[in-house]
């Protein structure tokens, strides 16, 4: 895909991000259980046409950067106690992420 058709990445590995607490209709790849939660960018995976738009047979361009985001299990499930050091990594598109303090 031509690079000019991709949105530039806003985040880098190590940045703290909060997942937007949005609820659009259609096909959304951001799992419900991580919306509103804070994680850390683990790495940039590349840029891909937005699947929410592809789901309606539109181009999905410009491509959205996709990140691997790491969440502490206790951030996702506050009552998670069995292995407090556990983490979950989720691939999330940039338009779902906001910088977190």
């Amino acid at each position, binding site marked *: 895909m031509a690079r000019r058709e991709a949105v530039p990445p806003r985040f880098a590995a190590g940045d703290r991000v909060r997942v937007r607490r949005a*609820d659009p209709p*259609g*096909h*959304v790849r951001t*799992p*419900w*259980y991580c919306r509103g939660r804070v994680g850390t960018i683990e790495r940039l995976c590349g840029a891909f046409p937005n*699947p*929410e738009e*592809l*789901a*309606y*047979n539109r181009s999905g361009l410009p491509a959205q950067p996709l990140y691997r985001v790491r969440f502490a299990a206790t951030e*996702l*499930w506050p009552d998670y106690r069995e292995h407090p050091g556990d983490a979950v990594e989720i691939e999330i598109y940039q338009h779902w992420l906001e910088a977190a303090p």
Partner: protein
Amino acid sequence: MRSHHDMGGLPAGRCERDEHDYEQWEKRVDALMMLLSGRKPDLMKVDELRRNIEALGPAAYDSMGYYERWMHAIAQTLIQRGVISIDELGRKLAELEARDGAA
């Protein structure tokens, strides 16, 4: 509101780990999806398949098997794309039901 299919993180009970064979019709549904999505221009995208699966109500979602959901979503997408007409699909289903002696 959380969509029914988006059940990650919820209690799920035991995971079925046994291997199993696919039925012939399941392989055909899979092949149909590959043929429709793998050509250029495509006749559907995997994201359209997902959107139509995720639009299923909880009762329908839970009562249908994996490839039954695919079959439903392929039919929905081909109608939405104008590849097949609703009447065409209805007539073909009636023809097959009559052939197979279904109710």
